[in-house]
């Protein structure tokens, strides 16, 4: 990527998928609009295509996001079965899930933004993710329908 041999720690080393790198704003937007089913795989793919210094960290954050959401759901389930939870609390639990996802989304966005900025400095502008966002909008109803018939935990994690 760089013209000389010495490589600075944070310089990405994009490989054969570099033409598919997008600015992380697009996966973050898709997380806000459609949920995790599109955003988490997209962020992971973008991190892999970039091969930045924070690749491991970003993949761990994605795993952490999924784990955190599952942990919240399991904790609520356990509390419900042991002590019983009032009905009014569920909308707030839902807010907690959204906040958890957005927090992790932002953390990954900020980490990836640095690598993409460096990539753009050396290799030119990254792709626009608008087509994927539009495709996700078209696919969203189908995915929601598909998940509606599946287990509730999957729905809560991926939507």
């Amino acid at each position, binding site marked *: 990527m760089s013209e000389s041999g*010495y490589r*600075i*720690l944070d310089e990405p080393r994009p490989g054969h998928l570099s033409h598919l790198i997008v600015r992380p704003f697009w996966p973050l937007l898709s997380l806000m609009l459609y949920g995790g089913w599109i955003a988490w795989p997209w962020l992971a793919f973008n991190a892999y295509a970039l091969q930045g210094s924070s690749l491991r960290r970003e993949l761990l954050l994605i795993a952490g996001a999924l784990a955190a959401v599952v942990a919240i759901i399991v904790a609520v389930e356990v509390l419900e079965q042991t002590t019983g939870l009032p009905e009014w609390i569920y*909308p*707030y639990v839902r*807010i907690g899930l959204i*906040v958890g996802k957005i927090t992790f989304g932002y*953390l990954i966005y900020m980490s990836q933004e640095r690598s993409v900025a460096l990539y753009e400095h050396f290799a030119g502008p990254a792709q626009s993710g608008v087509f994927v966002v539009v495709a996700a909008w078209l696919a969203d109803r189908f995915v929601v329908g598909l998940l509606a018939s599946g287990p509730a935990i999957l729905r809560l994690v991926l939507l």
Partner: protein
Amino acid sequence: MSDAIREREYGLVLACMRRGLIHKAVDGLKRILTEDPDDATAHALLAHCLVSLKRPHAALHEARMALTLDPESSQVHSAMGHALIANRKLREALRHLEQARDMEPESAQRALDLAGAHALLDERREQLELVARARELEPDLPEAIVAAGEIELDGGNVSAAYALAREALELEPEHIDALVLMGRCELRSGNIDAAREHAKWALSNNPEDVGALYLLSSIKARENPLLGLWWRYSTWMNERGSGMAILLLVGAFVVYRVAVQISIDAGASEVANVVQYVWLGICVYTWVGPVLFQRAVRKELGQVELARDF
């Protein structure tokens, strides 16, 4: 790489750093390090460049490598101090900058570096003493005069700051920091056109100078209160670091969602609607605000004519 070529390469790197051509300086340092990965000076200079490019993690990595290779160099400790400041590790940075100063007690620049760290820690007395010491050591050093001027300006003493900016500019008429200080004085006195001229003058010498860009942005913020609000919000967020910024944004989001939910639970759906419209307004403003602001600054930058020798 022969000694002559290395010397030439270092000369180019230092010239680029002085002119603010940091990317070019980085390329030169990478060429030096490709030939000799154990060159502590190159690692230290690279750390300085990476701090300027706002790449704090890489800067710290380079500074650590330099420190491993040459722990007895004041330049290396200075680089480490700056890299730690960029990573918001101020106390640790202070220790390294103190070590650098102790290794070169007669260097005004080392005293100024240390004064900068004390300023960030809000330790005004130490900052004042060190700037005064730097001025004692090198009375004609524009950087020391500008540092003294900045202290005066921050303390609200605009006329003293003016005098110091003038003194620095008499010594070096194209000194970027002195031009920026003069511009800040003009802006503080309400002379927006004069402030703009100084910002543009500084930018003609280095279009990437952070201080000059900040001054130009402050001028635009003063001229347009609505966009100025975004500029102040953005500056305030930046000062807090990315972690705190995420926490604040997520906190605001939680407040919004909980407020909507409570309103709905209490049967006050009109209130929930108002809260949602306010949130939508904030989202649109924080999205459109930076775009318009950057466009305005870019338009202004487009009018800057680069100095002939740039």
